[in-house]
């Protein structure tokens, strides 16, 4: 008899009368079976034969097979699904570049190539092996052939310049920029230089140490859709405020420029905010607010803004991932607190930058969204040079 709880129960038994409630241990055959399964799992992890085809890697290899077989339509479907889950993986973008080129959509493909080529910020772990520089170079050459019909438009050229810069082909960058830069002036502000450097995957210091001409900065920024507004219209005087909201297309980096100071910030799923005293230009507070959760957005923003003097200037940078993960409630909270409008839709995957002036608990703002997934959003609040 076995007691279970307060109830007495009979053991189950077989027709031969033998009780079957006695514990049965895994016999040698069962242990051997478990050992077989464990051995195969270990082999998979170790992968001495390079034959692992599990999970996401399997899906990537399927995509690679489709690309190799030039099955562009199916590859576009599979690649899009893979990008939904692994938007920051350069290898997927490199494959999608080939897919979209194969589908006759080179402008879309080139956007993927830019993201694939951009240097990564920090130690972001990657699931898939990065495409080699040679592979990226071959892809770029394929675009040069595709655009050999003489219709190399400005935006195409700038994208190719960005890929060439990421690959270190500075001579080619110089050749390409020579025609564009002739249109711009010979000087650039600190913010313009910082933005242009970010577009080429450089820091402002690296831009200067390479001796890149200031004349490139303006065309790069304007070609990238930088929005320039009058600082005075926002109540700022005497100094430049710049916001570059980056993302996958800038290697995961955003930038704030306040006067002469350039402040890099990570371009993750959190919204990067910086509070500036409009009179002195002093940075009062900087930090990140994660608005990707399902609720409590208004409280998170209120917490961040609490204690700040007014008037105060709030500059914000939201990466493509941040706008893609902000629910409607978060957008409503941002509108209410900072009067920002036009935040890109969740499916849009575009970065977003704004500068808002808060005074007496009301706000007015100016903002801009990135022109494409491979571009950052760039906002320049520039003092009138000749008032």
């Amino acid at each position, binding site marked *: 008899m076995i007691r279970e*709880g307060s109830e007495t129960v009979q053991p189950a038994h077989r027709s031969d009368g033998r009780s079957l409630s006695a514990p049965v241990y895994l016999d040698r055959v069962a242990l051997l079976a478990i050992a077989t399964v464990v051995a195969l799992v270990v082999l998979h992890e170790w992968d001495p034969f390079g034959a692992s085809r599990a999970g996401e890697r399997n899906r990537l290899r399927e995509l690679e097979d489709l690309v190799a077989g030039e099955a562009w339509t199916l590859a576009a479907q599979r690649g899009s699904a893979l990008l939904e889950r692994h938007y920051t993986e350069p290898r997927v973008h490199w494959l999608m570049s080939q897919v979209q080129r194969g589908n006759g959509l080179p402008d879309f493909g080139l956007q993927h190539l830019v993201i694939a080529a951009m240097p990564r910020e920090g130690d972001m772990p990657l699931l898939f092996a990065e495409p080699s520089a040679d592979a990226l170079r071959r892809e770029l050459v394929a675009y040069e052939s595709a655009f050999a019909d003489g219709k190399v438009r400005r935006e195409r050229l700038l994208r190719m310049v960005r890929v060439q810069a990421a690959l270190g082909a500075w001579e080619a960058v110089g050749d390409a920029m020579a025609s564009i830069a002739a249109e711009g002036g010979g000087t650039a502000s600190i913010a313009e230089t910082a933005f242009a450097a970010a577009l080429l995957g450089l820091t402002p210091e690296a831009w200067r140490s390479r001796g890149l001409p200031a004349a490139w900065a303006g065309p790069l920024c304007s070609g990238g859709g930088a929005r320039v507004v009058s600082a005075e219209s926002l109540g700022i005087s005497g100094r430049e405020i710049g916001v570059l909201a980056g993302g996958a297309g800038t290697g995961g980096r955003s930038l704030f420029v306040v006067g002469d100071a350039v402040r890099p910030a990570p371009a993750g799923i959190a919204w990067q905010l910086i509070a500036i005293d409009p009179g002195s230009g002093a940075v009062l507070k900087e930090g990140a607010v994660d608005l990707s959760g399902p*609720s409590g957005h208004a409280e998170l923003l209120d917490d961040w803004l609490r204690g700040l003097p007014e008037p105060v200037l709030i500059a914000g940078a939201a990466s493509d991932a941040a706008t893609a993960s902000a629910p409607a409630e978060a957008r409503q909270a941002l509108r209410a607190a900072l009067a920002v409008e036009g935040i890109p839709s969740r499916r849009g995957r575009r970065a977003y930058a704004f500068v808002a002036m808060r005074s007496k608990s009301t706000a007015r703002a100016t903002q801009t969204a990135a022109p494409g997934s491979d571009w950052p959003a760039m906002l320049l609040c520039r003092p009138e040079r000749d008032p």
Partner: protein
Amino acid sequence: MTAAWGMAALERYLLYVTVASLPLQALTVIPGTGVTVTKAAGGLLVVTALLRRLVAGKRPGRPSGIDVAIALFAAACAAAAFWSGDPTASRGALLGLVQYAAVYYGVVLAAGEPETLRRVPALLVVGCALSGFGALSALVFGAPAPTVDAPVIGTTIRRICYGLTDGNEQALFLLFGFGLLLHCRELHAGKRLPWAALSGAGILGGLALTMSRTGWLCGAALVGVRALAGRRSWRVLIGGAIVLAVTAGGVLAVRPDVGEAMRRRALQGIVTGDASIASRVVHYAKAAEQAAAGGMTGHGLMTAERVAGGYATPLGEPMHVTVHNVPYIVWIETGWLGLLAYLWLWANVIGLAWTAASRERRGASGEGPSEGVTRGCATGWASVAATYGVFSLVMPFLYRSSLAVLLGCAVAAWRSEAGGGGGSDRGRGLE
């Protein structure tokens, strides 16, 4: 004698490998082949089971109890393949289903012996526990490489699985193991309680990381059913609560963000609106029209994605998904005949499970004799069938050889409990 013993041992080994590898299929690919050990062992099992009985001069097997329903469903599938809108795809699918039927009968034969059948639940639980601990380790230590490590689409909620390539399917298999662990007394009785607790911790941890809301709900339902099952099994439930608390506490201590992610995932449908639920409703409504248009024999096997995959949401966005409901898929692909045969098959399965579980309960309470394998085994397998039944209403898992394996094990257990004989050698032990 030696050869017979060897063949019997090989048959058991193949069955055990097939069952233990089910929750880890994507990781158990035989190197250099691209074939999972689950499929290879399942195929070999069919051959071995037949050969063994032919060599011994026995009949290959007795009816399994749901054979008429299987035959009717097979006929409906054959008709759907014959009048298919995509004959190539349908012929391939039909061939696959025939193979699954062979695997089912092979498993029923191999699992028919009580000593074998008693160990099968433990093998599945071990596989599930390995899967769960693999996912937990991937979360905490970053290794081994999970089979799924990606945000839930449209969110930033991270989903991790170790073993299968779909989070919901992984959750389904973890629930199979969980159901057996809760019900099969042999798995948690006496000195095996610590092992059961350890396995339960792995399974629950893995289940949490799948971020499958259907999985979580089914897990809670399994616990509820266990609590209300009639026997006041406080020991199991208190032990389970302790395991849950320790697992949750341990994971949250190391990775507090998991708790936040789970909270967000759970609230997703309530607070922010849920596209996955909305799209299912839209899809079901549209799929019904297409299914009805398929007539008696449907659009053909493996055509659901083509027939019902081009729908758009009310906003005009293409869905590019198959119908997340197995009865709907069966209806679309095999028409009214197939749907009726499928429902009849389920009715047979439920009848068999109900009879076995009732008999098991009477036997356990001393009201009647029991020829069962072990206490709780029939109910445990009934929980597996019920879990799949619920999942199949919101997920598209149909063409899976693993389901044939599990149905074979379940039917063998129920037949054994009901005294009908699970296979040709039931009760005779190994020769």
